[in-house]
Structure formats: structure tokens, C-alpha cells
């Protein structure tokens, strides 16, 4: 194996925080997400020769992480949880896993989205990838990503009982959403 170029090492390290955030949104669990990031880094570094210099390192790593998650983690998860609903329920009982309780309600709503929609929304809406890059990462058409993002936003608004920006309240957004939407 060739010695790792310093610029490659820096680019990989720089992508780690965002990779973790993406992994947590996929797994719904910090410990599993960190294992996923670790496996992604090992795979990436073992195959670093297939990275094309000058292309987006972050998108390359996201693709590896996403594919690995798809092939391994979803299989494993299905063994213990039979639906996204159970996934969401398990989040409720373990709010501390996220470190910050304030995003719990939002995470719960996010966890109820179909995984295709969730990953599209995160990649475009949070990771800052273009629709084209997100399509490359997910291996689908740009139009498919656009439609998934739109459906994800609509569903999220439904789940959080948000009809207008006022429903968020001025400050503690999620709390206000729940207060106005709770039965």
C-alpha cells in the first residue's frame, strides 16, 4: 500500500464529523453509528487507490458508508426490529444516547420516515450535497432524489404537526411544535 498522502489524510479527517452525523441519522444510535464510521474509514483507506484525486472526498466516503450501511446494518437491524416504527420507539426510550434531549422529538419524527427519504433529506438538507451529488451517493436519478426530499419534508411537517412557521413558535422550536400538536 502506498503511504497516505498528507492531503488525503486531512481530507478524510475533515469528513469524519459529517460522516458521524450522517451515520447517526441512518442508525439512530451513536455507538452503532461510530462503528459504522470506523468500518467505513477502514474500507476507504484500504481502497484509497480507487479514490480519484480532485474529486469530492466527502462524497466518496459518504457513498462507502451508505453502501456499507445498506448491505450490513439494515440486515442486522431487521433481525431485531421489524419496522421503522419500532426503530422510532426504541429512540424514545433512549433519549440520552443522543446527548442532547432538545432534538429528540425531531429525531423521532425523522426516524419515522422511510429510509430512502430520510437519507435524501439529510444529504441535501443537512450535509450540504447538491441534488446531483446526493444522487451519486445513493446511486439513483437526480429526479428521484428531488422527489424523495419533497416527500420527506411533507411527511416531516405532518409528523411534527406543522402547518405554518408560526407553529414552530419563536424559540424552542420542537417543544412548541409538540405543544401545539400534542393530543
Amino acid at each position, binding site marked *: 500500500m502506498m*503511504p497516505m498522502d498528507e492531503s488525503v489524510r486531512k481530507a478524510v479527517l475533515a469528513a469524519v464529523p*459529517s460522516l458521524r452525523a450522517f451515520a447517526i441519522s441512518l442508525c439512530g444510535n451513536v455507538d452503532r453509528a461510530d462503528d459504522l464510521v470506523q468500518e467505513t474509514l477502514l474500507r476507504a483507506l484500504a481502497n484509497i487507490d480507487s479514490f480519484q484525486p480532485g474529486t469530492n472526498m466527502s462524497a466518496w466516503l459518504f457513498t462507502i458508508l451508505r453502501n456499507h450501511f445498506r448491505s450490513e446494518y439494515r440486515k442486522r437491524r431487521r433481525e431485531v426490529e421489524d419496522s421503522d416504527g419500532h426503530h422510532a420507539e426504541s429512540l424514545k426510550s433512549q433519549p440520552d444516547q443522543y446527548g442532547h434531549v432538545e432534538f429528540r422529538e425531531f*429525531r423521532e419524527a425523522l426516524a419515522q420516515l422511510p429510509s430512502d427519504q430520510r437519507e435524501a433529506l439529510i444529504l441535501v438538507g443537512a450535509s450540504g450535497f447538491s441534488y446531483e451529488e446526493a444522487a451519486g451517493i445513493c446511486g439513483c436519478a437526480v429526479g428521484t432524489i428531488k422527489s424523495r426530499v419533497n416527500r420527506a*419534508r411533507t411527511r416531516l411537517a405532518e*409528523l411534527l404537526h*406543522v402547518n405554518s412557521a408560526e407553529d414552530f413558535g419563536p424559540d424552542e422550536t420542537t417543544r412548541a411544535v409538540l405543544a401545539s400538536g400534542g393530543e
Partner: protein
Amino acid sequence: METAATRSKKPNAKPAKLGRDVQARLGQQLRAMYDDVVNQGVPDRFSELINRLESDEKKDGQ
């Protein structure tokens, strides 16, 4: 028992178009949640992993 998960399962209705304001607020929430993790930086576990691999490679290469 009715839960948030079961209550929310509706047949696929034609999605209503969200207002720009709602989209903007959802986007803010999403980024705030995501950045909360991003701002934790690189845990030692990963910087150590990358440094360790690098030193292994140097050994291999010599």
C-alpha cells in the same frame, strides 16, 4: 395502544405543497440537529485510527 408511530401511518395522500416558511424552519431544525454532531469534531478514536494506519503503512513501505 396507539403510539405516534401507528397514529402517523396514513395511506399515501398526495403531498400538499409546503410553504416556504415551513420548509425553511424544517431545514433549520435539521441542520441544527446535524450540526450538533458535526460540532463534536473528530473523536480521538478516529484520529487515532487514521494515525495508526498511517504509521503501519510507513512501516510497510520501508
